[in-house]
């Protein structure tokens, strides 16, 4: 009887703890959403629950007025992030295949270098990247933005794919080699299909890392034409008195692609997150 009571109190405690965690996580997100869909006047009334709902703020940010050209910012972000995703998956899978399935000297060193590059903090490269890109005419170009984001994305994709490829039995590759397949056809016909979830997860991570990048675009872009989403929102936010409604509408739109993509690979998220540090 007494044990039952302890159990009940325990599970009530756990319920409360979970509830608190959910509140802490959800309230800021709720605050973003509610600000984006309520009329300006209600923002000043500061109520917690919405009285009216409107899409005005979303219409506003796509109105093509100065600093509200969100279709331009989104297009720029998509061009850069999709390019970064494709390039890092291609280079990453070639390198990962080499690191896992081909035998040669210096492989350990190469793996360590990839890992070093993956965790290397980008801010340390701020000065030289800016100077080198400037002298090569890469500032204010898509190519410059893409190259800068590849610094982190390529080693990350390589390391992650390496983690997935290691789980594939080497016999599969060896028997294909005996059949006379070239490495490239083994990679594309056998390895990539088998490791498809890993490839998709790595692609999602590469896309998202580039989608959120701020420092390098800030260094490399002048003017309006190439503004990516974070920079476009920043100009908009700091350009005048805060317009919280449109700002939060822009935040929601920026958050959608990563949220949807992570949702698709949720099952594989944790493994990708730890980049092969833990099994399972």
């Amino acid at each position, binding site marked *: 009887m007494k044990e039952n009571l302890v159990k009940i109190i325990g599970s009530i405690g*756990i319920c409360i*703890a979970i509830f608190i965690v*959910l509140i802490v996580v959800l309230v800021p997100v709720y605050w973003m959403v509610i600000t984006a869909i309520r009329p300006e006047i209600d923002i000043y009334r500061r109520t917690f629950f919405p009285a009216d709902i409107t899409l005005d703020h979303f219409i506003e940010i796509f109105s093509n007025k100065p600093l509200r050209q969100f279709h331009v910012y989104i297009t720029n972000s998509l061009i850069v992030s999709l390019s970064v995703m494709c390039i890092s998956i291609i280079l990453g899978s070639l390198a990962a295949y080499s690191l896992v399935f081909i035998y040669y000297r210096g492989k350990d060193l190469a793996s360590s270098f990839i890992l070093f590059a993956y965790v290397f*903090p980008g801010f340390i490269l701020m000065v030289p990247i800016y100077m*080198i890109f400037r002298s090569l005419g890469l500032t204010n170009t898509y190519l410059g933005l893409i190259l800068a984001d590849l610094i982190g994305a390529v080693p990350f994709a390589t390391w992650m794919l390496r983690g997935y490829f290691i789980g594939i039995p080497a016999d599969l590759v060896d028997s294909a080699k005996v059949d006379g397949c070239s*490495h490239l056809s083994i990679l594309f016909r056998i390895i990539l299909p088998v490791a498809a979830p890993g490839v998709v997860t790595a692609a999602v991570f590469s896309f998202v890392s580039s989608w*959120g990048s701020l420092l390098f675009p800030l260094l490399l872009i002048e003017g309006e034409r190439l503004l990516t989403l974070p920079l476009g929102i920043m100009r908009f936010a700091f350009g005048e008195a805060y317009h919280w409604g449109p700002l939060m509408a822009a935040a929601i739109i920026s958050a959608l692609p990563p*949220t949807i993509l992570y949702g698709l690979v949720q099952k594989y998220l944790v493994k990708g997150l730890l980049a092969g540090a833990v099994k399972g």
Partner: protein
Amino acid sequence: MKLTKKEALNGYLLLAPAFILLIFLLLYPLFYAAWISFYSKIFGGPAIYVGFKNYIDTLIDPEFYYSFLRSLMYTFVAVLFKLIAGLFIGMLLNREFRARRIVRSVVILPWVLPLFVVAFIWMWMYDYALGLLNNMLKSAGLPVIYWLSKENVMTSLIVVNIWRGFPFFTMGILSGLQSIPQDLLDAAAVDGASAIQKFRYVILPCILPVIYIVSLLSIIWTFGDFTTVWILTRGGPGRASTTIPIYLYYIVYAEFDTGKASAASILTLPFSVFFIYLIVKLLRRAQE
């Protein structure tokens, strides 16, 4: 498998595109920074050799030390709290309860949102006149707070970093907890271990590798966090929240002193390299 020459050549060829890219974009810039740190160079102008002047300038600049200390505080306080929250919530979510899957998906949400979006949300949360936090204080009849004032700004930034980053710890620790063999836990229960003993002698040793790796990765990322600080405060008010990445940015853009900025980058390198070394060692061991 034989170690043939042709085979090795194939290996190098497949590795080459990624490596050439990284040599051009990572190693070359790193050496370039080391080189330019011995020169005085204004954009467009010639480079003039100045020896260790840039290093001395940096080392006698009190702002460099303040920024470094702020970065250290930001990093270690945030990582410590993320670890505690991650452990606690990870254990919580490891239990069986209804709607567990939904709760887990919700808990990773802060980490799924792009960092700049998180920074904008919190800029709005912290707003003095209309933000949610001061709204709540007002409705509770409490005095409102300048969340981003000189005194509060570092704490407020750390809170944002914890909110965004704890799911990384939670998910890592959760996956560690789930890899603990059930027989081990059963055996501990049969032996009459208390909850604390079970944690100390069974659970903790099993999840220690995960704790190490998520903490180390988080230390590197938090130390290099430019986005949160830049969007919320740009290093201000005054220089109250100028961390190392912001400090470097200002030397380049306010002082146009690329030589000094390079010297300062090189001076922070040992800190990063130490943690990178630990990560490389740990992850390489985990994968072998």
